[in-house]
């Protein structure tokens, strides 16, 4: 879920962990999580926390949501494409 921390920085909360997008190390950890081909991202991960009332923060969170949703929507197809390309390699070599 996309939310904000005490410093009003945008964070993504997932499985009891919080990833602050401003913190490069934490963001890298988030990238490791979301690019994992074995993990299917659930629907709520990029939902904006409804408790955010500040309209500015809400707008920022929404921008992140749109960005990550774009990624989430393309992930399955990308993985399938990757698998296909690997298999294609074997077929090409076998020929």
């Amino acid at each position, binding site marked *: 879920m996309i939310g904000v921390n005490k410093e009003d920085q*945008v964070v993504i909360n997932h499985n009891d962990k919080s990833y602050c*997008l*401003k913190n*490069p190390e934490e*963001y*890298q950890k988030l*990238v*490791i999580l*979301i*690019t*994992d*081909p*074995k993990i299917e991202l659930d629907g709520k991960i990029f939902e904006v926390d409804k408790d955010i009332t500040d309209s500015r923060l809400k707008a*920022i969170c929404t*921008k*992140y949501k749109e*960005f990550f949703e*774009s*990624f989430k929507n*393309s*992930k399955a*197809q*990308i*993985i399938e*494409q*990757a*698998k*296909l*390309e*690997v*298999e*294609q*390699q*074997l*077929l090409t*070599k076998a020929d």
Partner: protein
Amino acid sequence: MDRYLKCDLHMHSNSCYSRKYSKEDFINHMKNVDLDVFSITDHNVVDVKLYKELIKDLRDKNIIGGVELNLSIDEELVKKHKLFIKGEYFHAVLWFSTVDLDEFWEQLKVLISELKIDIKGKTIKEISKATEGKSFLLSRVQDVFKDFNYFLTFHEGKSSRCLSNYLPNSDTKSGIVYNDNQVFKHNLFYYNNRLAIEGGIKTKSISSYFEENLNTIVTRFFFSDALELEEIGKKFTWINFDGKFESLILPLSDPNARVFTSDINTENPQKNRENYLEKIKLYLINPKNNLEVEKIIEFSPSYNGIIGSRGSGKTLLGSALSNTNVSDYSKYINNAKTEFKIFGKGFQKSSPKCKYLAQNTLLTLFKNGEAKNIDFIKDFYGKLEKEKKELTKAFFIKAKTLLDYEKTEFISISTKYQSTINDITFLEDIVNEDYIIPIINIDSFQDGKSFITNLSQNIENIDKKVQELEEKLNQLKISSDEYTELIPLNSIVEDFKNSIKKHLKLIKDEISRTRKEITNFDNTPCILRDKLIKKYNNLVISTNNLTNKPGQAHLDDKDYALKQLQEYTKFRAKTQKVFDILSLGLIDVKSEAKSEEININNDKLTISSTIEDLKDYKEYLQEELKNYNDLKHSEKMFEILMSYNDKSKIKDFFSGQKYKANSLSSSNAYIEKFYSNLLSSIQKFDSFTIKLYFNGKDLEKYSPGKKSEILLDIFLDKSLLNEQYLYIVLDQPEDNMDTKTITTKLIKRLRELKREIQIFVISHSAAVIINGDSENLIYAFEDELALSYSQGRIIDKDMKKNIVDILDGGEKNLRMRFNKYDFKMEDKK
């Protein structure tokens, strides 16, 4: 040398009252009849003169003295043993040595006179006639001939005058069982190895009792007992001995191994009698003076036992016979001069093809992987290993392709993004997006292009399946010519293969045609569409840049960041896919290729081929990478990717032992080494390992004794008869085996094989030699430092002494074989 002889030990001459042919006709017939051994057994008389005439004239035949006696059991014994007697008497054939002809006839005449028959002035035929309807008491016969060596054979299973007619087992009408009769007959036979019965396999009143209740056997002989001369020679018994009366103890004491009746075996039971090693010529060296002595040893086509104390030269003979490791004995033998004489040929230098099992090698044979070469296993295993090799080779090609591909992908993406992750906090910037026209995402644009790609892919998959089907079809086997009943199946299989191949060819042609059509398919609309979208996007972007540059730049940054995430995902998905393919592939390559279950003496054997030193793919990765966890494979590869720009960081991912920092100048060097190591580790394995499963259990898990037993079964399987070995040499095969296994497996198998192929067995076990029924014994001994050999049979005086002195359980086994009440170390005169 003992061999199978055609014998008719019960026939009547012209001197018997029961036969009408003339003496001249009888002698002429016996001269020409196809028999090796015969005995004249006239009713209650012995025509000594006729015997002597025949012995003189028929020198190519062996003649055994004989008589057919009318016997009855003393009244006293009948009462004592509560016997039920039916009829007056029964017939028994008594054999003795022709050396005792005169003396035997004199004693028989005493018995005849006791029947109140006056023999004075009577011809033999008349005396015979006078005995009709009269009988001798069994106990009196035993008493009169107690100092003679003789064998007694009862009529059994005939319509009249057979022992079980006289002493019936039961009354079939009333159902009464005469237990006392059975006990009496049991005692009569059980304690005497010199009694036998007449009859083929079907005459079993006595023998079935012994076989079923006592697990032993009574010798059954098949005779002509012919009424007409023409019948003599038609019914006979194959007996394995030297044709002499004194040797009859050998077949009588082991009829299963030595006696075969012509109702079942019309052909000589010794199958290889014209294909065996007849002699070996050795040049033995006396180490004392280095002088050579020529020694020729003769062999039986059947079972040759080699015995002797330790260091006496038993194994030397085995080595010389098999031409194996003879150089170990150069002090005692000039092997360059050893010569072999095969039956029907002269001496030759080259050693015949033989099967050799060296001492203590049965278990090591398996451990060293040489079991692959055991005849029985060779064909099954060869096929398995070939399939396994092909699978392994295909896997290695696959592994190289995939690892090369992954490496290229790794370097490509690390070069593109310089191991960075874009900061996306720019998304928080407030950007005016007015006038920004959205572009079309070409990757997610759905049109006929993706359909064509999917269609091509599906066709390729079908083509792959067809190829697999073709391979499977080629593996379909035609049955071996050896099983004639399966020959008609060959045409069925062949027709099936040809028919399916025709269909497959049609499919392949169709695939090829469709592939060409797809290639030639006019996809101009798609190409135009692509071009249009690209053009449109460029136009939109340049327009956006003109109207709202910051807005377009923001969009570009967002696209770039998104693309980066997508490409990292793709990279990880590819590494995961490679990992999955190679992990599964290695499991497949490592897995045992098993044969079907093979029957061996009612047990099931499975043979497998495996590569034991191959590891799981994750283990190879663990050898290269520190703290590697296969559950997070793509994560680890991503972390390495993220460290690619920093050599100091990347080195921490790899195992320090294998990746010396001073020899690896760049991150790229690490990656090159990583993929190169991985591939060579996978490809490094020693050999294919054979495994045997006996009744589903790994042979290695059996005790050494059981393992030896199983391996012996396999080693001595009948398949070795297909290999055209002239003989088999076994050096102490009983090692590691318990008594039961020696008896039920080893000895049983030797007894079966010895009629098919010549066998040489070096042994310390009396059971193996005596119960295995070795026809020819070779005794190895030291003679003033030089090694030498003597030979004989288990009944020969010197050989009996050697057996008792040398073999484990020698005396006990000899006693058991030759009757416990009649065993003498000295030959009886």
